């Protein structure tokens, strides 16, 4: 997991989003969501779309598109979707640039970072604002809160990654900016756990399903959820090249509808059991872990695709600090709202 994210604190948009969610929850909402914006379902030609996942085994980027496909939402929109996994945001951007994939299931960091580098990329749909990152410490180590981590070492994936960002914000939040040392240990949670056990680090940052898994095995303890700490965030988005969005706008519309179908399906209580089962399958974890993860994250999904623009702005502004870019890109360089309802509507 390479990507920093800011969990959404649904405050300023709380009302608007509640309305949107309520509308989606109503009987009529789901049907309207499923109907395409232009033309009818009948007589549509099947379009092929390749989707690139920024990383594979995560809930927001890996599981969601796969569930959406599995329950037939893409089929309904006459979309033939192929899913390809990448190894991080830079990789995914290169994949989109070279036409290997059309649409990217990315993090909130990827579109602004690309734009700041002069690569034309736009987020066109918000999947979830909420960050899944948690801080995991060793049980019985005496580390129980983030304050306990000041002056200590915390494992991240790499400098400049999402997990790096989490550490900075956590330190800021307890009034000790820069007071927690980040130690990059790579992309394998097993390495983090090994370092934790050896005492090389006192905690590490990873996504919530790993936290739950470790709590269950007794190897770890979640001491903080990043979503509870950060104010404005936009964790997962869909992105594509502006020229693709322009030339294939009809296909993109259908894709957005399919995603709305998929996310709504996931939020529907009636599908909870099936959703958990599929999550367990796609993440390759125990069902109990999948269930805890599902419960934690599914309500934060935004089927209609609206963005937390404050979250995106916040992310863009820290890019130079994380050495991902030399400048702060403007919102309109990397976001387009033509496919989703505007904030508050």
């Amino acid at each position, binding site marked *: 997991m390479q990507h920093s994210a800011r969990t959404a604190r649904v405050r300023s948009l709380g009302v608007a989003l509640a309305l949107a969610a309520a509308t989606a929850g109503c009987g009529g909402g789901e049907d309207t969501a499923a109907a395409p914006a232009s033309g009818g379902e009948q007589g549509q030609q099947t379009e092929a779309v390749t989707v690139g996942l920024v990383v594979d085994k995560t809930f927001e980027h890996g599981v969601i598109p796969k569930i959406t496909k599995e329950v037939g939402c893409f089929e309904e929109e006459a979309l033939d979707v192929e899913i390809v996994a990448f190894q991080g945001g830079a990789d995914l951007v290169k994949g989109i640039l070279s036409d290997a994939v059309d649409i990217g299931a990315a993090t909130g960091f990827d579109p602004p*970072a690309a734009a700041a*580098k002069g690569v034309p990329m736009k987020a066109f749909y918000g999947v979830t604002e909420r960050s899944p990152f948690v801080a995991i410490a060793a049980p019985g180590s005496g580390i129980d809160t983030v304050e306990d981590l000041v002056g200590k070492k915390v494992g991240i994936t790499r400098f400049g990654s999402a997990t790096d960002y989490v550490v900075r914000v956590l330190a800021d939040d307890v009034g000790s900016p820069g007071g927690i040392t980040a130690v990059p240990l790579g992309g394998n949670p*097993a390495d983090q756990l090994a370092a934790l056990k050896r005492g090389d680090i006192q905690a590490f940052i990873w996504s919530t399903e790993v936290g739950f898994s470790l709590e269950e095995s007794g190897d770890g303890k979640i001491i903080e959820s990043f979503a509870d700490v950060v104010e404005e965030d936009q964790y997962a988005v869909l992105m594509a090249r502006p020229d693709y969005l322009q030339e294939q706008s009809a296909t993109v519309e259908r894709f957005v509808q399919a995603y709305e179908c998929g996310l709504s399906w996931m939020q529907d209580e009636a599908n909870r059991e099936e959703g958990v089962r599929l999550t367990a399958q796609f993440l390759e974890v125990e069902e109990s872990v999948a269930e805890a993860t599902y419960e934690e994250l599914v309500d934060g999904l935004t089927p209609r695709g609206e963005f937390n623009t404050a979250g995106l702005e916040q992310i863009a502004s820290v890019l130079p600090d994380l050495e991902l870019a030399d400048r702060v890109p403007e919102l309109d360089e990397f976001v387009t709202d033509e496919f989703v309802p505007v904030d508050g509507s």
Partner: protein
Amino acid sequence: MNPTRLAIYLGVPLVVLGAWFVLAASGTVNPFLLPAPAEVLADLGSVLTDGETYPHLWTTASQVLAAFLLAAAIGIGIGLPLGWYRTLRRAYEPVLGTIYAVPLIVLYPVIALSFGIGSTSKIVFGALYAFFPIVLGTVSAVSLVDQNLVSAGRSMGARGLTLFRAVVLPAAGPRIMAGLRLGVILATLAVVGGQYIAGTSGLGYLLATAGQSFQTVQMFAYILLTLAFAALVNGLMAALDHYSNRSYR
């Protein structure tokens, strides 16, 4: 060196550089995928002068050396008796040959778990990769020693270790050296690879970090640096090979 030879030696690199320049300048390829050579070279210059790169170079060099020496010691140590005793060779050479064909990179996560992600795991991984061509090269070298030379040695009274030292080892030398050359290349690949996958320092780590951080220009600069490093390693070994074989041919 005569002009034709020079032209041939420089020809291919110049064509590649030229193609790179044209592709980047014409805008055919997005600079995020393939940055302009001028920018990359400029970045390479600053990378080499900023002083922060040298610890990474040094780490990589020392890990490669350690991995290579470890593999050489074990590989030659096992290869010599295995090559000399026919029953041993028949029993184990096929096994070693088969493992050699397996992409050992899949073992890296296991190695990293056992040895951490510091230098030790890279050295172990590099030694593992380098071991196979060295041991197989040694086995082959010893088994292919001209038996007439061995007989000559024996007729003059050499036996056992003396025979080995005076006849078999020098006779097997050139082929063992060939195995060592292959070994050092694989050690370099594996060490840098391991640093790339999960490391905290070294050329591989620099490559990974630049790549993952949307820093394509810097990544290409590091690629060039890694190429130069590999060329240097290979060149050193070639010189060693040449020197040790100077009397044979």
